[in-house]
């Protein structure tokens, strides 16, 4: 990857996610810069969707940091577990402490409590900022789902304008005007007053993209946007997405569409076993894969 001068838009450090005892993400590091179009591919169950959902905290990571526009979206400490602390506080029980002198124990405990205090205060501050800020941050992070998730009780127009009216303080007229312009761009201006149930899958997904765009996000996350579509509708959605990429939108796309990844993305990630196994430019990625697992994967899907 070429070096960049600007700070990353979204920074992910050592991101981990556990579901019960099942480790899904095992430390993902990634810097996303403005204008990047990142395709994330990998076998099913490799954690690519979970990774994407962690980026706007639909899933809460179990460790790691996410920094968005230089502000912490998420940070978690895992330096001491509760059990470790308990054991240190009960010197008689913990065998490791038996060899220590009284003074040494005191010193450790004194330091520990200071450290813990510091850790707690910092955690609290970040948690506060996260809780308060997450809704604000999410306004800047658009998300498109595999199952569209349009609101069936609202018309297309209401689907698109709900969030801008509620959160950006736009008047109904302003929001509708903007929505119409966006709908026009994806060729659905005349469907504004329909309910989602009247639309085909491809149309629904285009509306879902417009709904996210109406908030004027700085980055768009796509979670397998074409996987639930009939084959003949995949093209229309990919077209909208590549237009978006051309306009300079920063995008992270979890996809199985290798053609799209090759032509539209500027970076491709291969995730397997909860880690990034390979990251490269599309050309290198497809023509000269280095990771063994990736070679195997590509031989199956291409």
């Amino acid at each position, binding site marked *: 990857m070429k070096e960049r001068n600007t700070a990353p838009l979204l920074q992910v450090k050592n991101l981990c996610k556990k579901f019960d005892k099942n480790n899904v993400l095992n430390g993902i590091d990634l810097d996303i810069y403005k204008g990047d179009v990142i395709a994330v591919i990998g076998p099913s169950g490799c954690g690519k969707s979970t990774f994407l959902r962690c980026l706007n905290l*639909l899933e809460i990571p179990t460790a790691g940091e996410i920094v968005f526009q230089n502000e912490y979206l998420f940070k978690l400490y895992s330096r001491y577990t509760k059990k470790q602390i308990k054991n240190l506080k009960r010197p008689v029980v913990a065998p490791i402490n038996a060899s220590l002198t009284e003074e040494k124990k005191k010193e450790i405990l004194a330091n520990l409590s200071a450290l813990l205090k510091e850790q707690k205060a910092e955690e609290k501050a970040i948690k506060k900022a996260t809780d308060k800020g997450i809704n604000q941050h999410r306004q800047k992070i658009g*998300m498109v789902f595999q199952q569209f998730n349009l609101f069936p*009780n609202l018309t297309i127009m209401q689907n698109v304008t709900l969030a801008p009216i509620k959160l950006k303080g736009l008047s109904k007229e302003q929001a509708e005007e903007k929505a119409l312009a966006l709908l026009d761009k994806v060729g659905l201006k005349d469907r504004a007053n329909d309910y989602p149930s009247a639309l085909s899958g491809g149309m629904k997904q285009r509306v879902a993209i417009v709904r996210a765009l109406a908030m004027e996000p700085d980055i768009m996350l796509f979670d397998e946007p074409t996987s639930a579509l009939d084959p003949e509708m995949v093209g229309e959605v990919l077209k909208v997405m590549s237009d978006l990429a051309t306009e300079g939108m920063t995008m992270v796309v979890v996809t199985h569409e290798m053609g799209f990844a090759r032509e539209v993305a500027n970076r491709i990630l291969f995730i397997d076993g909860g880690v990034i196994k390979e990251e490269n430019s599309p050309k290198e990625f497809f023509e000269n894969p280095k990771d063994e697992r990736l070679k195997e994967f590509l031989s199956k899907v291409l």
Partner: protein
Amino acid sequence: MSFSQHLQYIYSVRGLLLEGLGVSLIIAFAAVIIGFVIGVVLAMIKIAPKNNLFIKILDKIADLYITVIRGTPMLVQLLIMYGVVLVAFKNNPTNLVVPIISFGINSGAYMAEIIRSGINSVDKGQMEAGRSLGLSWSTTMFKIIIPQAIKTVIPTIFNEIIILVKETSVVCYIVLRIGGKQVWDLLGIAEKLGLNKPAYYMSLIFSVAIMYLVVVLILTLVQKLIERRLAKNERT
């Protein structure tokens, strides 16, 4: 005694029976409103993200409430309310508040479970979509989730309302007063009249059955109308 004599007798006491029906309906509908409000609040507590101690405590209280209310008979609850909990209101000139609160509290527990299941039946993706736009939990809940949940819970809610309307007939176990004057609910007045004229007792009971049936039919009609209205945005 001929059939027409029975009819004549029932006709002659129609005013008293309708008055009784009125008392029953006042209790039932006031209780439905209280029950619905309690139900919504409890359901919200049950499904809210448990991210602070306050919500966790409320959640435990809601659990206890639902367990106790669903675990004991309505009549027993009414007698406890009348004799202990709301004893201060018992001798008021107008003490309808006692059965109204008792039935409302009872209904609330059932409504809570109905509303909770309705909300849970809405696709998880809807909340995620709302939240991913930056909308808060409560905005998404009230603008997106609840309108969809209402559609699925209408039949069960009406089921509960119908059960409640009929269940108010156990109120004849307590003494009711409006403005200092004793009043009876529909079954209560029928029982009282039947004591004086045992020959007409069964006719009175049949009349009560028919009157309840008519009320329930009207409620069913209302349910159908509401369902039809709500189905509007599903049409294409």
